[in-house]
């Protein structure tokens, strides 16, 4: 089996695994839509007071809400992807089996996570966005090229998010229980990804800091492309830079960690 086909199979497995839980998915879509409606009204009030806040007009601000709801689980802002499972395997020692598989550990989990993200994008991304477009006047682009550019940024955002969560999961080699780190991770991600509010609304220096951090790649970056508020190439360059740096850090941490693994037989 070729390497490409192997990882494609893993990705397909990730897709199918999440596609199995239809009721849970429908429930998730419903929740995303409800939160979208609530947030949309608060944004309407905010942009009513300050039109053109953060460089968005009112329709763009509303669109931002629904992009956030559509991408929330795709880029796993609040966790809930592969990392819980990987941490559990590290804790129980099952990781030893993963390490002697003829596949790269990082790529294996990345493939699975991309499969998951694709399913979430189709199920929990498209439907809430459609609901949002029915309920509110959104500023959605008509050119297919913009949508395509948006999807590229979503893929890159997912990879950055994966790279962060891979690092988080590996801390379990040292901490055994990664629940605390995972929690700090999702709180940081929620604050810094633009899930709370668009990052260009953050005041002063705080705004400059959060826009420079890797979490900006998760929601803010794809949103800016869909809203036509940023040049795609600049956005991609930043996302690629973070993805490369964080994936490399993941590999380094992995090799440091695996030198620590002592498999207890029996």
């Amino acid at each position, binding site marked *: 089996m070729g390497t490409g086909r192997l990882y494609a199979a893993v990705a397909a497995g990730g897709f199918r695994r999440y596609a199995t839980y239809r009721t849970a998915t429908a429930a998730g879509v419903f929740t995303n839509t409800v939160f979208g409606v*609530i947030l949309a009204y608060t944004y309407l009030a905010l942009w009513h007071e300050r039109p053109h806040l953060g460089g968005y007009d009112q329709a763009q601000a509303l669109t931002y809400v629904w992009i956030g709801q559509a991408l929330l689980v795709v880029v796993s802002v609040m966790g809930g992807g592969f990392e819980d499972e990987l941490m559990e395997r590290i804790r129980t020692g099952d990781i030893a089996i993963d390490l002697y598989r003829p596949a790269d550990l990082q790529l294996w989990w990345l493939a699975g996570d991309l499969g998951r993200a694709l399913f979430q994008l189709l199920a929990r991304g498209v439907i809430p966005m459609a609901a949002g477009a029915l309920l509110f006047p959104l500023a959605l682009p008509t050119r297919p090229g913009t949508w395509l550019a948006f999807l590229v940024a979503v893929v890159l955002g997912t990879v950055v998010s994966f790279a962060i969560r891979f690092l988080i999961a590996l801390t379990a080699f040292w901490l055994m229980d990664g629940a605390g780190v995972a929690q700090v991770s999702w709180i940081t991600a929620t604050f810094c990804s633009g899930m709370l509010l668009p990052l260009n609304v953050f005041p002063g220096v705080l705004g400059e800091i959060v826009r420079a951090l890797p979490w900006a790649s998760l929601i803010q970056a794809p949103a800016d492309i869909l809203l036509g508020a940023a040049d795609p190439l600049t956005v991609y360059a930043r996302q690629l830079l973070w993805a490369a740096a964080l994936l490399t850090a993941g590999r380094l941490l992995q090799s440091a960690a695996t030198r620590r693994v002592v498999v207890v037989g029996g």
Partner: protein
Amino acid sequence: MAEATADEAVAGPEPSYGRVREGLRAYRLIIAMWIRSTMAYRASFVMSTLANLVATALDFVAILLMFSQVDVLGGYRLPEVAFLYGLSATAFGLADLTIGSMDRLGRRVRDGTLDTLLVRPAPVLAQVAADRFALRRLGRVTQGACVLGYALAVLPIAWTPLKAAMIPLMLLSGGLIFCAVFVAGAAFQFVAQDASEVQNSFTYGGQTLLQYPPSVFAKDLVRGVTFVLPLAFVNWLPAVYVLGRPYPLGLPAWVAFTPPLVAAGCCALAGLAWRTGLRSYRSTGS
């Protein structure tokens, strides 16, 4: 507080007091057990409580960020929004602390462990409500209370005894209304086992909605949370009375004093829903 809800719900529309006492006792014993087990890892408890506090404070951080750009939102200034936020977060926090684990019911139905609860000689609702009681949820209550404290300290309210009495009244009835939502949501999970996220829309979603002034939302949405799912009675209606603000939907002034009645009604309905759900439960037997 939730003990009372739990019991009302167990007993259904015609409470039998022996059963209520039994449920209360079971609830108390089970949460005492969970608290003991939590306290075995004190450092972990302190950290997870702090994390809960920080995580739940994110909503308020979003509001602060908004007010870094504007002076009023929907006609309300920051202390007034903080007042609404504090009431909503504290009332919801109390409900979440006492019976927040009810959203795990779907999992118990799915993996069959609900059967274990059914054969125990204690009311099922008390057992489910106390299941995995998480003392760390004090974090949310603390956070909400701090914001409420800030609002009360800075708001120039002409206090009367009646207005002062409204604060504990709102927290108590608001907590009960949210408890009823939790119980009704759990009852729904007997039917749709995988759908615990739907419940989040009404619990966490409702809490988020109530953090903002009613004037922010569309009339139909406000109508929905007043007359269909009466979340507006948690804080909006009594709070506009305390703040001396215009009532949403042109409602009469006396509605500000109805939250206890609404809470009682919600609990009775949630109890009925729970009974129906539990009666319809068929174990897979495996």
